[in-house]
């Protein structure tokens, strides 16, 4: 029996709060290297969750597993309380289109123009006419503060900030219900960081979307997050200790007494300097 469309309901105010993505006991290894160990967390409809933690602690891997772009070595992923393994290939592809994914380096297709990049998902999944596509692309470019003329450019002609914005426009073109941002502000100047943060807020305010953001940028956490989940590298944990060391509001993260949390959110090296000196 085909499973019901789990994303058929729009994420309205009444619907918000229910678990939309759930990870149960997720582990992930790359060869002999263990990156995630029995991680369990959930993302609720309509909220904006920031995943923070040191580089290499498994945040991006977690997000790829959430979107089913990577398979976990163990554990279960549920979308709207239905395990993704219960879906057929076609259902998985259909449901994955409810997710928009902004990749770390924007992952624009080098051989395609900005227009073709933004229109890619629509061309692939709909039968829209070229004139309608042009309208949508121009609208999405406007949403991210770019002129319609930039549609003719190639990705190699764009700056880092522009690439991220085109990546966001491509993500928004399919009108996703859940948007996953992988380090959307990394490598950008402070002004562009604020531009991206504002775009994330604008996107959320325009219609009710659920957002998950992997970031090292605490200004992003302060500005957009409803909830913060902090990961810790496995190499620094005792066996059996949970990899998720904090879960709460941004205010709670900034006022936390836990040195693992406070050192990260205030960017203090602490005992790390002594550790480095011993190397």
């Amino acid at each position, binding site marked *: 029996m085909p499973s019901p469309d789990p994303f058929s309901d729009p994420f309205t105010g009444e619907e918000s709060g229910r678990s939309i993505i759930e990870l149960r006991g997720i582990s992930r290894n790359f060869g002999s290297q263990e990156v995630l160990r029995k991680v369990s967390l959930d993302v609720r409809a309509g909220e904006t969750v920031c995943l923070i933690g040191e580089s290499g602690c498994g945040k991006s891997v977690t997000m790829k597993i959430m979107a089913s772009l990577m398979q976990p070595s163990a554990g279960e992923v549920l979308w709207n309380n239905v395990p993704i393994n219960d879906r057929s290939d076609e259902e998985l592809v259909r449901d*994955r289109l409810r997710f*928009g*994914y902004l*990749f770390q380096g924007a*992952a*624009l297709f080098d051989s395609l123009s900005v227009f073709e990049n933004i229109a890619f*998902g629509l061309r*692939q999944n709909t039968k829209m006419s070229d004139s309608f596509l042009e309208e949508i692309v121009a609208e999405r470019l406007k949403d991210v503060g770019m002129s319609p003329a930039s549609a003719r450019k190639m990705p190699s002609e764009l700056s880092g900030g522009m690439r991220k914005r085109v990546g966001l426009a*491509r993500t928004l073109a399919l009108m996703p219900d859940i948007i996953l941002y992988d380090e959307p502000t990394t490598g950008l100047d402070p002004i562009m960081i604020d531009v991206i943060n504002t775009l994330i807020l604008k996107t959320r305010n325009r219609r009710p979307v659920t957002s998950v953001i992997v970031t090292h940028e605490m200004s992003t956490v302060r500005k957009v997050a409803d909830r913060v989940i902090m990961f810790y590298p496995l190499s620094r944990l005792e066996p059996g200790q949970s990899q998720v060391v904090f879960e709460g509001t941004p205010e709670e993260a900034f006022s936390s007494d836990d040195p693992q949390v406070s050192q990260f959110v205030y960017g203090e090296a602490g005992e790390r300097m002594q550790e480095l000196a011993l190397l």
Partner: protein
Amino acid sequence: MSSVPAQRKPSIVHTFGQLVIEFVQAVGDLAIFASSMLRWLCRGLPRSTVVVESMYEVGVRSIPVVMITGMFIGMVLAVQGYQQFHLMRMETRMGAVINMALVAELGPVLAATMLAGRVGSAMAAELGTMRVTEQIDALRALGANPIQYLVVPRFLSCFLLIPLLTAMADAIGVAGGWMFSTQVLGVDSTYYWHYSTEYVAAWDVFAGILKSMFFGAAIALIACHRGFNCGSGAEGVGQAATSSFVLSFIVILIVDFFLGMFLNEIYWTLWPGPSSFV
């Protein structure tokens, strides 16, 4: 309490066993990749523009290099063979040897080698870069299947266009060998063609073209598989491109050997009888 034994250095048997396991894993992985490609090929083609673009890259842009290779190999065969045939006063038989070697072996193998070097390495590097920069993940996130969008067009281009490239290499090689033998070395043109047509049969041309299709399929699958499984960074992309060419070349020679034996068996089954060169 028993103490934990110290880890011993792996012996030759351990190392050999590890190599066998890795080899079996690699072959199995390639087989799964190939079956996935065939499944997506049966489900339908991606947009025609994607296929045409790939065919232009694989076919049209390979023509110059294949033509130059074919021409020179034909002439080189004439240069190398002339002295031996001249000693036996059998220069007029050179056409048979040059043309047989070209259409049955050298044309298909050299066209495939050129394709593996020019196209296969580029494919592995391009797909490897796409993997490293998460473009392959982006395809999936946007509802496209990477195998269908990236591998199927490349496979079709190599599989369908390599016979044409081989035919071109054969033709230009035959012309080069004839031109050098008759115009420079002074071999009689009439007898050159007489012995050529006597010993080179349509089956030999067909067998060479048929083999090339297997070479094309192997090149595309190996190159795409290497690209999809490339390591991180520029080093990973470089290794993918290099290993794609090396592996393709080895596979071309192995497939050539077994297909040669197989096609010979078919030939002798269909047309049994004695054969003599002189």
